[in-house]
């Protein structure tokens, strides 16, 4: 119990004094996660829309695979990305291992199935509603996808938030491919793991509280953005 209070107090001081190392780690966490989230959305959203409106042969297989991949163990993703990016691996020449880029790649792989699956569910429901109308209007495939993505944007926000939650709290994969290098690839989660390992529970807890606060903050911001839009519009 004492450690909890110590952690809270330490978190408080780290934040109010804007501890330079904490700020650096927190910013890197945000930068890596938000970049990964952006890339993942750019892949997952069109994919989800395509799965909703088109009827190709492997569609069901793709959907089932995405659903299965939602539960992909991050450590395994990390391991596979590690092997691919390692010097003797197929993409070794890019020298990406132990860089933030490698961490972003791993996070993208982890969250794309999650975002695509959740997004697909709401887009599929909306497509059922819109199907007759859009077919009657002779809308092109691309326009169908655009219409669904735009009109389901609030549900897609929820999918994005789920992806954010999974990515920012991820530790196994980015530990492996990032290496938790000070000043280079250390982020909040890997720092927590390190400090816990060293027995620095108060500091680890402090970082944990910062992580939670950061997650809440981003969620609230995105929620607030969605809400002001609704009030302004409706």
């Amino acid at each position: 119990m004492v450690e909890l209070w110590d952690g809270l107090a330490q978190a408080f001081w780290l934040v109010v004094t804007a501890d330079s190392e904490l700020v650096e780690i927190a910013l890197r966490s945000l930068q890596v996660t938000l970049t990964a989230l952006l890339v993942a959305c750019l892949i997952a959203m069109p994919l989800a829309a395509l799965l909703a409106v088109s009827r190709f042969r492997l569609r069901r297989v793709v959907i089932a695979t995405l659903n299965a991949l939602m539960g992909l163990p991050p450590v395994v993703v990390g391991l596979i990305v590690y092997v691919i990016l390692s010097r003797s691996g197929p993409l070794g020449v890019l020298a990406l291992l132990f860089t933030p880029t490698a961490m972003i790649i791993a996070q993208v792989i982890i969250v794309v199935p999650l975002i695509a699956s959740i997004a697909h569910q709401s887009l599929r429901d909306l497509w059922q509603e819109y199907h007759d109308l859009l077919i009657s209007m002779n809308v092109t495939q691309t326009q169908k996808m655009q219409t669904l993505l735009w009109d389901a944007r609030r549900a897609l926000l929820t999918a994005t938030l789920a992806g954010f939650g999974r990515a920012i709290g991820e530790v196994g994969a980015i530990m492996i491919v990032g290496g938790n290098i000070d000043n280079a690839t250390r982020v909040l989660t890997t720092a927590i793991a390190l400090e816990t390992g060293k027995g620095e529970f108060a500091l680890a807890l402090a970082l944990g509280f910062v992580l939670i606060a950061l997650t809440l903050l981003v969620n609230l911001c995105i929620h607030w953005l969605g809400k002001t839009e609704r009030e302004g519009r409706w």
Partner: protein
Amino acid sequence: MSTLFPLQIHEAVTRRHGKTLVGPVSMTLDGRGVCVIIGPNGSGKTSFLRLLHGTARLHSGSILWSCSTEEARRRQSFVFQHPVMLRRSVLENLLYPMLIRGFRGKAAQAQAEAWAERTGLQDTLQRPASVLSGGEQQKLAIARALVTKPDVVFLDEPCASLDGRATREIETILTEIKAQGTGLVLSTHDMGQARRLAETAVFLLRGRVHETGNAAAFFNRPKTKAAQAFLNGDIVE
């Protein structure tokens, strides 16, 4: 008169899961005035309209407009029995058909507002379409179907779940656009409405055209027994 008509239907059949929903049907529609499709529930009115519109698969036979199928498709629209509202504002619903044709900006806006005015929706423009009443939604669906100035509009029981006032308002709109030369093909189970609007009557029974012809003649002196019984309000199956 537009170049879409006459519409020539020859032995057209649409099937679903091995069951024939409509056909074989052979007839010619000249597109003058309102063509009303009547018949008991399940007789195939909806399927027939969809078949003509091109959203039900033509299993065999042919449906030939007087221009290419693509052009015909661009110049017609469909109003569903249960209006499908886009999850957008009333204005955006009206803009949508123009938007997908690449027509936007001030002119599109003016057109949408003009149609809102004509259908009495001018005060609802910024509201989400989903909060409109049933009658308002159907009027919006009709305005949205007309905003691209189609040559023919298919309407599937447009007043089925509406009260008398909304029905009258919609009939007024339909009469106006008919006067401007837009072809209307509409199904209804309201015989009063059919008499008020129709120039041509098509009586469907079990997916086939049982009797068709000039509306006045049909309603006053139906030739077939089934049509007589149907117009008398008897149960026809």
